[in-house]
């Protein structure tokens, strides 16, 4: 009986919903409605700004699927009747670059999203590359590397920096160039890092268990990088890439210091990189590239607050806490880091905690890798107990990540994401997220992916691959696919072009590559950079 009643009323209900969905209309300037025959819909609204400002962009077009609207003069917009789900929204305006951003639309509710538009290219600039036979793209792999101010108590991270490069012959169709040339690099004013870093005085203490069942030492000669033996000047080797084959050059493990040799505090150090023809000795191309490094990995924000001597005390207090905190040591697997320190023995954190960045595996009873242990303890709970209330303990810096990571002063985040108002949390999540047991550090899926927020059809990384290891694979001219690393044109994560300088800053080394070849500070957008006599600005 009940079933027959359902079958009687269901068509009526459907008719009612259908009639309601067919209703609605088009609002005033800045708003629009999509026509939907049936199904749940929601609304997207917000502002379109010129990036890095609060200046609204009027008459911009916001499009989601087949529906679109135009912003009002103040940049505001509202677009209703959008199908529920995750969709790319596209925004364009005269004199601005088009942008896309994935939005999540919920049924019968409004999603607020502001978009940021970058001004259009100045197409009247004659690229300096026009007069060149070769162009050399070079970049730092991560945008910032960290090292400690003091290694006398323990080591979390050794000094370790990475530079990469690709060479293009503008008069050849056989690119990139990977033979017959030598890629040299020279860190300007940073040839003697041991003069201001005490890492090499203590590195004989640092080792870890590796995946082969043995141990790896970080002991290195003064001014020599760990694991690779890299120096602050030398030649790059071919960059290993099992997915794409050899496409470029790399030097990993450069022991860069945040101090110049004369003591200048210089976290935005510059390296000169050039390509030399092996047969003639001629310099084919040369660029300056940033080698960012910072000691603003500041445990003493919470563990101590004064100068160098107290920094040692702050680090010693970390060791003491590690030995005595019941949430870490327990009663059956207590550590003795502080007593070791007092007797002159110090440790590398990765001696026990796996660190994929070094190749270290868990050992000595540790069950969490180093990033997990650090962020889990500082941002979550251990055995059901909240061990630290991050919101009250952290220093008042925004974002809170800057309590430990560079930093309020050293600009780790200085790329176009920062320019668009994004913070660490927008891409990395909370401290607890980073400390999640489900996360394997430094792997695709654990780090932010461009395709999560931007149209994955055109702007995503390669499948199961980090941004810094991805290559262009959706070029309009397929002949370009698989040749250039994303970083060659867009620069490092955290420093994606266009980078943003601090207020008032007038020198931004991150822009030196596009400025050298393109004459502006945008990502590499001008086809003429690599192709003589070819104009155009579309690569995706």
């Amino acid at each position: 009986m009940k079933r027959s009643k359902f079958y009687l009323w269901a068509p009526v209900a459907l008719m009612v919903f259908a009639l309601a969905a067919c209703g609605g209309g088009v609002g005033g300037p800045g708003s629009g409605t999509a026509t939907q025959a049936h199904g749940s819909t929601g609304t997207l609204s917000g502002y379109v700004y010129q990036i890095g400002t609060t200046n609204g962009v009027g008459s911009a077009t916001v499009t989601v699927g087949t529906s679109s609207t135009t912003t009002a003069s103040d940049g505001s917009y509202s677009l209703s009747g959008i199908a529920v789900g995750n969709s790319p929204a596209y925004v364009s305006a005269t004199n601005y670059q088009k942008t896309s951003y994935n939005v999540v639309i919920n049924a019968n509710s409004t999603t607020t999203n502001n978009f940021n538009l970058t001004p259009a290219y100045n197409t009247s600039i004659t690229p300096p590359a026009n007069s060149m036979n070769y162009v050399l793209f070079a970049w730092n792999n991560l945008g910032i590397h960290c090292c400690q101010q003091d290694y006398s108590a323990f080591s979390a991270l050794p000094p370790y920096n990475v530079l990469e490069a690709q060479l293009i012959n503008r008069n050849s169709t056989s690119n990139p160039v990977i033979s017959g040339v030598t890629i040299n690099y020279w860190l300007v004013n940073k040839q003697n890092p041991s003069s201001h870093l005490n890492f090499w005085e203590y590195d004989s203490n640092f080792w870890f268990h590796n995946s082969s069942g043995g141990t790896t030492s970080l002991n290195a000669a003064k001014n020599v990088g760990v694991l690779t033996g890299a120096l602050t000047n030398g030649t790059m080797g071919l960059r290993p890439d099992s997915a794409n084959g050899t496409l470029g050059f790399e030097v990993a493990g450069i022991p860069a210091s945040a101090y110049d040799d004369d003591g200048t505090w210089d976290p935005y150090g510059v390296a000169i990189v050039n390509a030399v023809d092996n047969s003639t000795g001629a310099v084919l191309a040369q660029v300056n590239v940033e080698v960012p490094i910072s000691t603003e990995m500041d445990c003493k924000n919470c563990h101590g607050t004064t100068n160098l001597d107290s920094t040692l005390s702050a680090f010693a207090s970390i060791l003491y806490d590690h030995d005595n905190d019941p949430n870490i040591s327990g009663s059956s697997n207590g550590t003795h880091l502080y007593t070791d320190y007092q007797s002159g023995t110090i440790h590398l954190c990765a001696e026990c905690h796996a660190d994929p960045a070094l190749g270290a595996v868990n050992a000595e009873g540790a069950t969490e890798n180093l990033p997990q242990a650090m962020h889990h303890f500082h941002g979550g709970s251990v055995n059901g107990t909240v061990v630290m209330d991050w919101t009250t303990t952290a220093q008042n810096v925004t974002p809170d990540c800057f309590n430990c990571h560079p930093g309020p002063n050293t600009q780790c985040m200085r790329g176009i994401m920062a320019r668009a108002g994004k913070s660490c949390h927008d891409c990395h999540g909370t401290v607890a997220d980073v400390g999640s047991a489900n996360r394997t550090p430094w792997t695709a899926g654990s780090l932010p992916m461009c395709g999560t927020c931007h149209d994955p059809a055109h702007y995503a990384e390669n499948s199961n691959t980090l941004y810094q290891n991805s290559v262009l694979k959706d070029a309009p001219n397929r002949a370009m696919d698989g040749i250039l690393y994303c970083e060659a044109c867009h620069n490092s994560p955290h420093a994606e072009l266009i980078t943003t300088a601090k207020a008032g800053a007038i020198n931004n080394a991150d822009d030196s590559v596009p400025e050298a070849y393109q004459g502006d500070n945008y990502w590499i957008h001008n086809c003429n950079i690599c192709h003589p006599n070819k104009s155009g600005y579309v690569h995706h």
Partner: protein
Amino acid sequence: MKRYFLAFMIIGVLAAAGCQRGAGPKGLLQKYFSTAMKKDFAATYTCYYAPYRAKISEAEYVKHRLEDPATLLGYKILSLKQQGDAASAVVVLTFIKKGDPKQPKPFPVTVSENMIKEHGDWRIKVW
């Protein structure tokens, strides 16, 4: 006689003004290193050219110089070349890592310093 006296006075005033404006690259290096030796890093900071000071604040600079495990004990200018508004010098610096039992002795570091004339004053050019 009065005319000559007046001329000498004018020349003297101009010369004095020039000395106060900047004593050249060597004077810059002397100020740069002597203030660092005294740990008067606020004064050292004023020796840098504008692009550096725009990127690194005085507070940040002083903080990190004070945290530097190495202390500057002395300097010796080996060579100094000037060409127009640019100059370069090779200098041997003597540092010590005070309080560090692993490196208790002074050690030398040879550096190249580039300098540039900026609005009439010589400055240390970092990049």
